């Protein structure tokens, strides 16, 4: 009995990589419901009525349709950039422990939890001509006529910022807390002022993390759909790619819908490629201070 048990242990130890089968269910599921549908979608685009590439051609040759790519980039890149740039000083000030940090973090989590549909719905009333925002501006005599902030680019940008900024902030805060405080203290002892400490010590260590933050917030902003339809002008200035793809889908034009969806994915991956290309040139090293 004992010998048998030991024999079993030995066999198992040797066959340990055999446990790889544990990952099979997840891999099979992802192939069946992610990879296969994507390939199926690519297949559909080649079965379009006008020939194999006509679905792509009709999207890319029509200026109105093609313009949606630039509209999407024009909304998502500024949203991600503003979020990251605004998150850095805020996270810098909040990197240490202080009272109420958890509460402030929780409040910032609220828009992430609410999601873009709720934020967009709230923004319609809040930013509208009779909303509080315009009432305050008029009461302070900043403007005479209500500022138009809904059903245009400004409204979508503002609601996207509300949805995306918390993600940027939480990520940057995480990166700041990963930097050893001793590095900053060493710089201070060497006579560096607060601005020099930030620019020469913290920022270089932070930059790789900031590119990741930019990439993740860009991914979130690039997928914009509910805010572009609800707060935006879905037929004109905020007609983003996901709206164009959804329109084709709801017309049951599945080959066009898939072609647009695939172009959308490729554009996003191209931007991410550029971002990570830049990231590869940055300093990547330890963020902990050692005894040198």
């Amino acid at each position: 009995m004992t010998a048998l048990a030991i024999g079993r242990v030995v066999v198992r130890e040797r066959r340990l990589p055999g446990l790889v089968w544990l990952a099979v269910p997840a891999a099979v599921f992802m192939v069946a419901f992610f990879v296969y549908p994507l390939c199926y979608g690519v297949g559909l685009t080649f079965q379009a009525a006008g020939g194999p590439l006509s679905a792509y051609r009709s999207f890319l040759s029509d200026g109105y349709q093609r313009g949606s790519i630039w509209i999407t980039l024009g909304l998502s890149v500024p949203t991600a950039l503003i979020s990251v740039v605004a998150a850095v000083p805020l996270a810098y000030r909040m990197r240490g422990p202080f009272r109420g940090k958890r509460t402030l973090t929780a409040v910032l989590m609220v828009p992430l939890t609410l999601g873009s549909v709720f934020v967009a719905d709230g923004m319609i009333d809040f930013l509208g001509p009779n909303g509080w925002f315009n009432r305050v501006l008029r009461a302070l005599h900043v403007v005479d006529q209500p500022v138009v902030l809904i059903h245009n680019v400004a409204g979508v940008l503002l609601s996207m910022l509300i949805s995306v900024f918390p993600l940027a902030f939480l990520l940057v805060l995480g990166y700041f807390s990963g930097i050893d405080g001793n590095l900053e203290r060493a710089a201070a002892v060497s006579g560096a002022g607060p601005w020099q400490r930030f620019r020469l010590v913290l920022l270089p260590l932070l930059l790789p993390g900031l590119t990741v933050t930019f990439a993740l917030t860009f991914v979130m902003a690039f997928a914009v759909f509910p805010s572009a339809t609800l707060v935006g002008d879905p037929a004109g200035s905020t007609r983003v790619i996901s709206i164009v793809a959804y329109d084709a889908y709801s017309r049951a034009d599945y080959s066009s819908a898939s072609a647009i969806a695939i172009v959308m994915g490729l554009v996003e991956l191209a931007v991410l490629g550029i971002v990570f290309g830049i990231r590869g040139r940055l300093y990547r090293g330890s963020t902990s201070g050692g005894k040198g």
Partner: protein
Amino acid sequence: MTARLRLTGLLTWLGTGGFLLGMLGAVATVLLSSVAQQWIGTWLPGGYTFHWYGDAWSAYQVGSLLAVTFEVALAVVVLSLVVAVPTAYVLARLDFPGKRLLWLLFLLPQVIPTMSYAVPLATFMYRLHLAETLPGVVLVNLVPSLPFAILVLVPFVEQVDPRVEQAARICGAGTVTVFGRVVVPLLVPGLLAAGVLVLVRTVGQFELTFLVAGPNTQTLVVALYNIATQAGNGASPQEVDAMAVVYMLTTLVLLLVALRFVDPTSIVARNRDRRG
């Protein structure tokens, strides 16, 4: 130098203040509007009433919307965790050919815009006659949730000391026993974190559910979107806002539950430690 710092400090707090005012203003507007008799062109509504909630509740079957939302979310959480635990274990512990490909398979759905794979996936679900059914909605929601649960769980598996498992094996435990009695109990914090995050994401998941759900299988957020697009023709703005408040309360309860179990910054920090 101090002047420059004071300026950045001012900008920081102005930015934060603006953000918080915008967010709280939007939430307060929705809350007030949902209890207003009528609210046109004044600072505050003229009179208050709760009847919009009753109207919305019966007009949009909010009860059954909530039931569908929680059925879908619970099914997605349970299925994601059951499949994710063994997979996360393999990714954390074993080296094998094709491991990078497996990582790619789980990372891609987090990176590709949802609409990009939602459109072909929804078309595929219609082909399988699974669209507009509850299993169909659960299946499409698993596509982003399962890899997400795996990504959250891997660092937690890495924290479990392999010697504990070796000890169990030497004592004669098989794979199932090692998982059931050793690995899973040690993974409870990770399971809570992954489960709560998947729950919050599934309740808020819009695009996939929007494309695949039918009239009887839509979740709260999809119904809210559908009603909000009808605002002006059919649905009164107060009714839409009442729905929005119901949705907000649901997600806020989930957020409070989530914060009991998960520290949002810890996940990022943990991933970072692993890489460095």
